[in-house]
């Protein structure tokens, strides 16, 4: 262990020396940070807004005097909704642009494609989206919800409402499959019933059979991990089959304010969602944040959970750099998990030792304007658990 530490500090010394040699005159100049989201392709609609939120945080920090006395220079790259592009652009940002850290990523595929790049270069990625857990890389800060911060609080809420029979519907890829595995384990553990579990291909639009099975199974509530456009087809065909969200509630894990707007609020009104942030959160920090974002991007702009996580990531990075008194990624990530609880638009947050965010979970119900009425919140911020205790017993994140 000592040897390892020595190795690291020796490498750091070499690194610092070379940085000092190359850029001794630049020490007071701007420091570069990467922003890597999909600006084109199918994910662009969601990721462009996260980029906007990340850039807004960087601008605010610059206006307030920068970090360690230096201004930030954001280098924006386009991941083009393609995991391979994400990994290439990450390498480019780190190796050509010499960014000290990167904010970005959305899909699990994009994160998994970038992870080896960050490991190889020993740089740090700040990832803003809820995901399926089962991963803890020392080179990634995971601020989006772990399963125990979004899916399980939603189950807690449903159990408290007296729902006993659950139907799980999802798109066919890693997040829904893992989420439903965890849900099934917990539903069985509580001696409740899973009435059915169905998957449709990503982007699939025919739900006739799924709805027939739902009608035959007569569940109390549907938990949906459907993604993207499949949601529109699902809700439309549900309505056409005479099933309304008031008689059979639907809890979704991929519908936020923006998706609700795009789908048409009247289609999804009355359905439920679980997130760590809703635009309707009534706190001074959130009102200031929403107002600032609307001032910049128009009064119709909506704010979503991943955007706020992107915004928080930038501020957490700043605080960690100031605590570590260096931009070195290894020192920064060690400082980041030692920060005190800090206020944010979504309430008090802090990174746990496993580099995931301690945060509050909320359940909201969609109104006719596409906004969520918050109907439940976890009593306290929830500590992140990358590996579910029941579904993946014995697995933990190795200390980093």
């Amino acid at each position, binding site marked *: 262990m000592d040897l390892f530490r020595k190795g690291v500090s020796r490498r750091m010394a070499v690194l610092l020396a070379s940085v000092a040699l190359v850029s001794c005159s630049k020490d007071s100049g701007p420091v570069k940070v990467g922003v890597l989201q999909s600006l084109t*392709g*199918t994910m*662009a*609609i969601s990721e462009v807004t996260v980029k906007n939120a990340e850039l807004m945080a960087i601008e605010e920090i610059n206006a307030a005097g920068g970090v360690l006395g230096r201004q930030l220079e954001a280098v924006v790259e386009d991941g083009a909704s393609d995991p391979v592009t994400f990994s290439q652009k990450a390498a480019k940002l780190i190796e050509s642009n010499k960014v000290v850290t990167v904010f970005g990523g959305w899909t699990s595929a994009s994160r998994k494609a970038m992870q080896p790049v960050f490991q190889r270069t020993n740089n740090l990625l700040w990832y803003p989206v809820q995901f399926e857990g089962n991963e803890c890389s020392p080179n990634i800060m995971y601020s989006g919800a772990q399963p125990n911060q979004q899916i399980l609080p939603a189950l807690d809420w449903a159990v408290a409402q007296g729902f006993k029979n659950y139907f799980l519907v999802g798109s*066919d890829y890693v997040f829904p499959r893992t989420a439903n595995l965890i849900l099934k384990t917990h539903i069985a553990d509580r001696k409740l019933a899973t009435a059915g*579990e*169905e*998957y*449709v*291909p990503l*982007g*699939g*639009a*025919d739900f*006739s*059979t*799924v709805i*027939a*099975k739902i*009608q*035959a199974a007569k569940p109390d509530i549907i938990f949906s991990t459907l993604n*993207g*456009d499949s949601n*529109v*087809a699902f809700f*439309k*065909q549900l*309505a*056409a*089959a*005479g099933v309304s969200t008031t008689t059979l509630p639907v809890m979704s894990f991929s519908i936020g304010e923006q998706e609700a707007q*795009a*789908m*048409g609020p009247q*289609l999804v009104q009355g359905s439920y969602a679980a997130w760590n942030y809703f635009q309707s959160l009534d706190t001074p920090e959130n009102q200031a944040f929403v107002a600032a974002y609307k001032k910049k991007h128009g009064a119709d702009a909506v704010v979503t959970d991943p955007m706020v996580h992107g915004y928080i990531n930038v501020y957490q990075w700043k605080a960690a750099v100031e605590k570590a008194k260096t931009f070195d990624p290894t020192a920064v990530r060690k400082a980041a998990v030692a920060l005190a609880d800090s206020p944010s638009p979504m309430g008090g947050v802090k990174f746990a030792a496993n580099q995931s965010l301690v945060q509050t979970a909320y359940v909201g119900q969609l109104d006719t304007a596409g906004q969520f009425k918050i109907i439940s919140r976890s009593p306290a911020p929830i500590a992140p658990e990358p590996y579910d205790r029941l579904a993946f017993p014995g697995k933990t994140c190795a200390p980093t």
Partner: protein
Amino acid sequence: MDGVVLALGQGFNGLSVASLYLLAALGLALSFGLMRVINMAHGELLMLGGYIAYLVMKAVPGTAGLLLALPAAFAGSALMGAAIEAILIRRLAARPLDTLLATWGLSLILQQAARNIFGPIGVEVRAPAWMNTAVTLGPLSLPTTRILILVLCVLLLGGLALLLTRTRIGLLVRAVNQDRMMAAAVGIDIRRVDMVMFALGSGVAGLAGVALGLLGPVTPTVGQTYIVPAFLVVVMGGLGSIAGSTAAAVILGLFSAMAQIFVDVSVAQVLMLVLVIAFIQFRPQGVLAPRSRALDA
């Protein structure tokens, strides 16, 4: 009892899926039957119909909007089809492989154009409120939208049959289909027949787009979702045979719906592909061989 109800319900769902497959496949069958051209951009004609329905029903909501959207989508897609025929396919008529490539390129261009104009997220065609109901038949509840799409499909098939057997253009089409050279020799303007049939097939794709828009979102890639089953229907039905395509659509629709009772949607799609591959092994000419029915176009 529950099992019987589920099976009956799935029978209806299967017919409903069959009607969608057939609507998507009819245009392909028409153009392939007559011109031996495989139009890879056929899915985008579907997409165009969907977007036209979206625009029309945004301007005129309700039942009137839907009644207006059907002819508008037919006309819009037919015009686009006529343009594709005149600009692209006619000039490559002697080189079928090049048509394949050119129409595929066109399909990519049209998808990207839709993405630029309407955005990557799907738009919703809002059906009139009375369509968001279900007809209760004993223990079954059948969505009104799906019943109407079935009716639309049957009407369209009847119309096409009448057109091909009872009208002058139908006579010309059958003549060109039987022997292009001979038809040209006796003075039939085969280029005009080609164009009219291609436009007709495209218009039918436009109608299919409206039907899809009533069930799900219209996205830049909506055509891609249905083009594979449409090709399966055309291949299994016997290339170019309308009666064969109809039979194949019903077989595939019912098979996939029944399979879905036991497996989930993803697996059912795999089983459907396996069925088609096995079927083609034993009957390469399809359900009904082309040239064996007067309905052939």
